[in-house]
């Protein structure tokens, strides 16, 4: 058995949405378009398949019904693979899989965000800081001490000045007494403890960053601002430097220092034109101008976000709302 080349006439259908069709296709020549409906708006979506591109992959690999209708626009030649045939081809050319992994992970990230947006704050559960501490408390209460120790240690690693830092430190001391018969002050706890301590694997910059985020969430904006500025000044870790640059702007906004906030975000956009939080930075710029009473300028930032962002992103929704309220 090997993949078959199949001819399709214009206006024919390769498969319908809802079909249980476990085949994977590549377009060799001609024109094929995929029609589906946006799960949020119901709006009809059309996607043209490029020559050489795979389609029907997700539903075949995931063993679920096709999510779109594949319509032939011009006479086309299509190669049809069974899942094992596709797997064989892909394992000889890992780049195919890598490319698909990238596409799928983007789709997954997007749908994940859409779901999170629909869930109310309480359904989303605790904020991570409180959540982590409570896990420690739970294991403490049910006397699973090594697990409790792990959770409290992780808490202190990420949130050394967090809201529960003192309680976590107290609990760790108690737990070390119970597990080892003495607090492990002088010896590194990880040597005696069955729980692997991985605190040292987290880079210094990451630790500082999480600590500053914790300060921010406690609304200690001045302290957070200082911490974020330190991370940027030291510049030890590019990723956390970039993240901190964005957070500095947020601190300035919440400190109602709008002029400096505008200056800061404008500089950030110039320095990091592809920053992960670019759209959010634009949003804060809009908000700053709004606070300063410059509605027209604020509006132009909100419009910019709406012209760039995916319509389902939280920042798009925020910008749309802000723009309406101007």
């Amino acid at each position, binding site marked *: 058995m090997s993949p078959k080349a199949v001819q399709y006439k214009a206006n024919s259908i390769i498969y319908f949405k809802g079909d249980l069709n476990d085949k994977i296709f590549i377009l060799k020549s001609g024109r094929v378009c995929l029609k589906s409906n946006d*799960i*949020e708006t*119901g709006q009809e979506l059309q996607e043209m398949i490029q020559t050489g591109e795979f389609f029907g*992959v*997700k*539903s075949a*690999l*995931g063993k*679920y019904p096709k*999510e779109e209708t594949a319509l032939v626009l011009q006479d086309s030649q299509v190669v049809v693979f069974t899942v094992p045939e596709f*797997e064989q081809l*892909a*394992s*000889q050319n*890992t*780049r195919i*899989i*890598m490319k*698909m*992994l990238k596409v*799928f*992970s983007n*789709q*997954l*990230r997007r*749908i*994940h965000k*859409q*779901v999170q947006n*629909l*869930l*109310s704050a*309480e*359904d989303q559960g*605790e904020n*991570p*800081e409180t*959540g*982590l501490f*409570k*896990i420690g408390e*739970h294991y403490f*209460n*049910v006397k699973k001490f*090594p*697990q409790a120790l*792990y*959770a409290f240690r*992780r808490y202190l690693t*990420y949130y050394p000045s967090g809201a529960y830092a003192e309680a976590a430190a107290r609990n760790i001391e108690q737990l070390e007494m119970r597990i080892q018969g003495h607090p492990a002050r002088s010896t590194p706890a990880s040597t005696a403890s*069955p*729980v*692997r301590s991985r605190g040292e694997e987290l880079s210094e910059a990451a630790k500082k960053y*999480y600590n500053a985020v914790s300060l921010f969430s406690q609304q200690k904006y001045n302290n957070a601002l200082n911490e974020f500025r330190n991370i940027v000044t030291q510049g030890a870790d590019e990723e956390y430097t970039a993240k901190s640059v964005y957070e500095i702007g947020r601190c300035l906004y919440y400190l109602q220092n709008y002029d400096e906030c505008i200056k800061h975000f404008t500089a950030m956009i110039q320095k990091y034109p592809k920053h992960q939080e670019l759209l959010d930075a634009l949003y804060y710029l809009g908000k700053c101008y709004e606070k300063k009473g410059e509605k027209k300028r604020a509006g132009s930032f909100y419009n910019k976000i709406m012209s760039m962002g995916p319509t389902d992103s939280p920042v798009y929704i925020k910008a749309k709302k802000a723009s309406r309220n101007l």
Partner: protein
Amino acid sequence: MSTDLSVFERFAVTFQKNDIIFCEYEPGDTFYLIQSGTVEIVRIIGNIEKTIDILHPGEIFGEMAILEEAPRSATAIAHEKVKALEFNRENFEVLMMGNPQIALKLLKLFTKRIYDQKRRFMILTLDDIQARVADVFLMLAETQQNPDPHKDERVFNTSVDDIAHWAGMSPDNCKQVLNHFATQRRIEIYKDKIVVKNINDFARFVNSRRKK
């Protein structure tokens, strides 16, 4: 998996029985492929530690971490002595390029996750809370192995908390809806299972409530 993994030995980590591999809510940037031993995935709901899954050699977990440094959504505990390969964004590409079988496995896992999330999205967009709960049963029915297509009745070994989680509502609200269905004789609630008398009736009900 027959592929030679010895070149990836430097990414190997070992956990003793009951060790926490990672903990719910902690920021994550690594994911794992089990080589030997089993891993228990748990969540603490209320005051109860609930087992969500038991994973075996060859299985991947924690994979959402390569997407973003989101907090872990569950705790992973070594069920017995576990040997696993630990991956992060830096070594991920090296591993995948050198090992198409693992890459394929991850690809399949992503297709499943995308489907699950889309399905969850469809449930959550229903405004009618009764329809939401009914749609959770439809979703569970879709993933049941080999159901008898000629039978309308379906049995689910699912707890109220699980259904509430999927429906994005509090367990109390969910209980009310389930009790309402029970008085209508559309479902029967037992200690360890819920019986839906006619799954097609639920399908029609959900369809009528879905915005066109």
